[in-house]
């Protein structure tokens, strides 16, 4: 009986003592280890499929073939050159698209009459698939940067516009009343209430936009380009070089993930500052 009590007390004590720093880290941060683990499992599965299916390199290349192809185009600088081209199209297209969308979105959010006037045109313009519009843009603006940037702008415009309208309109009416009662002017309303309140929704729109921007750049390059990762996919396809197609695809995935991660990080920092 005494043994049992001492045992129970010891267990209780163990359970109640504070976790060591090591245990703490393991509990809260260990999920980061899942990422390299998931990648390893993915590569192993991929190699298994190639072995078991006996697939030739031009149908499904093995991970090593893709690695060799990557090493080659990285070493001769061509991968970076193509990546730079695509990144340039993405960044400028995002800048133009997001700035016009947020400005227009704010105006439409404040002015219902304007929104009713423009809404049909905006919705109609977004219903046309970008793939169909791309050749037209190439005819009108040439096969250089401009047409690709316009395609990216078009594809990111609508989600950002809708999110801006929703975000601005979603500002709590009571908070507006409060600001008004404190004699806030238009500028103060904008900077101290509307922007901070709409930020979470705006960041949501931004995350969608950056993912779409990669698609827009690739669509534009498929239709007419002489550089870029979309062009590289076409070129590799024409040469039956499937490992190179994989390299280009993985590069595009990396870009999309990096952009998404950057926006998430910005969101965390900005919103933490907001709540402090």
């Amino acid at each position, binding site marked *: 009986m005494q043994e049992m009590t001492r045992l129970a007390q010891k267990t209780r004590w163990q359970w109640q003592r504070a976790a060591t720093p090591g245990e703490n880290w393991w509990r809260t941060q260990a999920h980061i280890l899942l990422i390299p683990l998931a990648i390893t499992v993915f590569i192993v599965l991929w190699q298994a499929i190639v072995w078991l299916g006996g697939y*030739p390199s031009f149908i499904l290349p093995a991970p090593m073939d893709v690695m060799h192809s990557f090493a080659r185009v990285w070493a001769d600088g061509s991968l970076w050159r193509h990546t730079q081209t695509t990144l340039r199209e993405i960044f400028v297209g995002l800048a133009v698209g997001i700035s016009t969308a947020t400005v227009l979105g704010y105006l439409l959010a404040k002015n219902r009459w304007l929104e009713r006037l423009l809404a049909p045109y905006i919705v109609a313009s977004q219903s046309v698939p970008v793939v169909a519009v791309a*050749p037209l843009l*190439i005819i009108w603006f040439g096969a250089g940067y401009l047409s690709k940037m316009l395609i990216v702008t078009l594809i990111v415009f609508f989600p950002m516009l809708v999110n801006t309208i929703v975000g601005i309109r979603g500002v709590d009416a009571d908070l507006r009343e409060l600001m008004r009662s404190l004699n806030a002017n238009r500028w103060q309303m904008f900077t101290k209430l509307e922007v901070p309140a709409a930020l979470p929704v705006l960041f949501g729109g931004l995350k969608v936009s950056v993912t779409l921007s990669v698609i827009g750049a690739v669509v534009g390059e498929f239709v007419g*380009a002489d550089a870029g990762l979309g062009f590289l996919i076409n070129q590799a*396809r024409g040469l039956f070089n499937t490992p190179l197609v994989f390299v280009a695809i993985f590069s595009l995935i990396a870009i999309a993930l990096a952009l998404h991660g950057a926006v998430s990080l910005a969101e965390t920092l900005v919103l933490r500052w907001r709540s402090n």
Partner: protein
Amino acid sequence: MKKLSIILTAFVILLAACAPKPAPTAEPVSPQTLTHIDLGVGFVPNIQFAPFYVAQAKGFYAAEGLDVSLEHGFENDFVALTAQGERQFAIASGDQVILARSQGLPVVYVMKWYEKYPVGVAALADSGIKTPTDLNGRTVGIPGRFGASFVAWKGLVYAAGVDETSINLQEIGFTQAEALNQGTVDAAVVYLANEPVQLAAEGKSVNVIQVSDYLNLVSNGIVTNEKLIAENPELVAKMVRASLKGVQYTIDHPDEAFELSRQFIPDMTDADAPTQKKVLAASIALWKSERFGVSDPQAWAASVAFMHESGLIDTDMNPDKMFTNRFVVGE
């Protein structure tokens, strides 16, 4: 009531989705004993595929126990499918076969169709561009830096004294006619049976530089994979025989071939017909040959040498395994 109407709506949508597709009207009904073949080609249904439409419509394929329909898409994908054994035959250009074999695809070119490479450079007459060297220092539009257009362009650079560094080469997609009309380019790389005919129909006077005048480049033909040749050479022989008959018949009877082909090209209107007849005539000029279907070893050697020296393939290759004439009638 609301729940019922939702369920009913979903049921109707499901029914509509399950509705059988209407049978394609252009395809003739095929008896069960014929071997069906999907021939992979590029582009869209077009009069330039007349020999195959004719061979199907006149029963040349049926006489050999075959039922052939064309499958349209990106040519390289069909070559890869044929190499893998997922398709029996595809149409491919000699340069595609060379590129494919350099990447280990076991494809073999079994029948020559085009005698002359169908790509060239077109310019409006008032541009003053008549010979390849006139292109130096000008702006040239090209659909893309890949495919037959790019190979033909490199061929002109290799064999016709074109100075690539002085030329502003722009990728314009398949908008060559508009680009030439608007003057955004001085000249454009085109398919000889397409844009020149189209521009002439618009009343424009066009100069055309043909790659085949400067370089003996192997062009379109039927390809298959090594496995089919080893396991079922009879099928390959039948396909080649019937297809060659189709080519010969089209060249000998262009008007009848045109009418027979129309059933396979539903998008061709009567207004298009006169221009499309000219497209067929321009294509026939590219198919005419002293030796139908027979691949020329010298042309293959010249093509491999050109592609290697232009950097299109990494290693020099032996063309012997890339083509065979054993299935062509009379060889």
